[in-house]
């Protein structure tokens, strides 16, 4: 996986977190692959996750299968970003 693909996905994911959760740009920028999301980031409750997933669908142009949505996928910034890249690359 080229680095540019990782960074492009991460830039857009950071922007979505800013837009949807009202994170400051500084907090979004500080997110690392192992930074915790669902269950760790206080702003990200189940209602916010529902909005985030739909926004990811609209923004990246794929459909998220409900069976894919679990604690592992949403655990960290890195796991969510990896899921998005995998969806883009497989075109599913």
């Amino acid at each position, binding site marked *: 996986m080229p680095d540019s693909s990782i960074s492009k996905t991460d830039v857009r994911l950071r922007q979505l977190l800013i837009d*949807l*959760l009202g994170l400051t740009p500084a907090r979004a920028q500080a997110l690392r692959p192992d930074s915790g999301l669902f269950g760790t980031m206080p702003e990200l409750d189940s209602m916010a996750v529902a909005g985030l997933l739909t926004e990811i669908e609209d*923004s990246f142009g794929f459909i998220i299968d409900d069976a894919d949505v679990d604690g592992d996928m949403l655990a960290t910034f890195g796991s969510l970003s990896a899921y998005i890249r995998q969806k883009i690359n497989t075109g599913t």
Partner: protein
Amino acid sequence: MERGDYSWAGGSEALVRCAPQARVQIILLPPLFDEANRMRKTLTSVMRALATQGIGTLLPDLPAMGESLLPYGTATLADWQIAAAALGQILAGQEQLVLSAAFRGGALIDKALAQHPRWRLAPESGTRLLRDIKRMVSLRPDYAAGQDPYGQSGHALPPAFVAALEAATPDMAGQIRTLRLNDDRTEADARIPGTPLWRRSEPGEDAALTAALTTDLATWAKQCAAS
């Protein structure tokens, strides 16, 4: 901004109007469910801004939503379309140009105003609106598969209503202008900057979004008036 009400076949609901004497009147159809609350501030700001440009607006509460006295979940999609048609009737025969602007799920009921030019922001199908609610509930630790997700989320929706909404898509016939946000890759006539406030838990207001909506609605309304 004037508060009032309007009558439809099932009763009477609240309404706010801005510049009711203006020659061009836009009926705003709000988003559905929680999204209506998240967008209320933005819609009223757009109404005030359009009034300064000589454009009048009406913003209704839909039956069984907002301040309605009908219990939540008792109105159907058909009721909402009847209410939208009743709003058109308020303006009928007034020598005013009538337009409609539907936000999100509001696009599922603007068919009742299809004889007028229509405008939409990020229109959404019923399936996707319901999926947001279902996802919200399915992530909760106490949720067990098979439970009614709508009741669990505080949206006590009758099965017949859910079935009708699942099947509902925005009507595409006639003259419709569709706007979406820059980040949204779905098909649109134009894209505007702004954040999807309807998906934010604590939406606040986005000045860029309000300004972009006002500019596009005003330009479109003037084009409709000139044609």
